[in-house]
């Protein structure tokens, strides 16, 4: 029973890999073709791709290096104490402060949350961190307030933060019954 399941999984994986390669290949062939024969759609897409690669290339290597340093220097007990089950409400506050001061949005927050989780942060704190990284980033918030008013931004914070913490708590409860792990 278990063996056939494994086989199925394997076949599914190799199919996924094939699909993946096909999509990437077709895409790049189209882009190269467009550059050679001056097709505007492909050139435009290629230009977008390059500009995004550059803007992410500036921030991602730094983010991953800091994550690597975090992994080797920060002891597990520290994370467990503040962001784990022993942390209590403080864990959520730390998660929000960390999310607020971090650059890069979700794409940086995801690997960071994975590192925190593997060092012993509890799931609800990790989900709070992920949610907060979307809504409370301080540089972005200042920007928002300058265009839409302090009242608007403060209101958005006050409503969304409790909702993020509550939903993260219930998501943790729901997942504790399943075999869930962050990769």
């Amino acid at each position, binding site marked *: 029973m278990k063996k056939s399941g494994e086989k199925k999984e394997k076949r599914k994986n190799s199919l996924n890999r094939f699909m993946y390669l096909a999509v990437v290949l077709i895409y790049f062939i189209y882009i190269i073709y467009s550059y050679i024969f001056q097709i505007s759609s492909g050139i435009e897409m290629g230009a977008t791709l390059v500009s995004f690669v550059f803007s992410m290339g500036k921030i991602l290597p730094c983010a991953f290096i800091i994550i690597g340093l975090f992994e080797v220097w920060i002891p597990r007990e520290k994370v467990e104490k503040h962001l784990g089950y022993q942390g209590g409400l403080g864990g959520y506050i730390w998660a929000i402060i960390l999310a607020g001061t971090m650059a890069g949005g979700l794409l940086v927050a995801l690997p960071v949350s994975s590192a925190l989780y593997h060092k012993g942060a509890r799931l609800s704190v990790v989900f709070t961190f992920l949610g907060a990284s979307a809504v409370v*980033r301080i540089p972005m918030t200042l920007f928002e307030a300058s265009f839409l008013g302090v009242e608007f931004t403060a209101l958005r914070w006050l409503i969304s933060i409790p909702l993020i913490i509550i939903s993260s708590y219930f*998501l943790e409860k729901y997942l504790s019954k399943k075999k869930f792990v962050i990769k």
Partner: protein
Amino acid sequence: MWSFYVTAILLALSFFFDRSKTKKALLLAFKKFIFILPSFLIMLILISIILFLFPQEKIITYLNYGSDMVNIILAALIGSITAVPGFIAFPLAGILREHGISYTIIASFTTTLMMVGTITFPVEATYLGKRVALIRNVIGFIIAIIVALLVGFYFGEIAL
């Protein structure tokens, strides 16, 4: 640019205190980066296609003036599929505000813009799995609707 300096300083400090640990950290960083690279590539491909098919400035002009439920949800859907970074979205939201679009609609749009990521989904699913990534995005969508309704209520755009 400050993130570059912070990284450089931390790295130098780490190297000064423990060379082998620093080497391990860099190796880990590299491994983690390689792990997520395929999903990143798919995301970038998606972004370039979506930005081509739906030019962002145009999408935002589909936001409507009314603050009823249909318009709130429409704004939330637009925010969910949009990929504009905050430094473009907020000035635009400011302009929309001057053109009389309600705070309700703006809240719905900007909150989903930040909390729901259609384009980042492949990356998120690599870490959390498809199911949990989907749940998290649906929760973000619901939170955005609640935020929009309460913002609208506060500014007197929605009456109970």
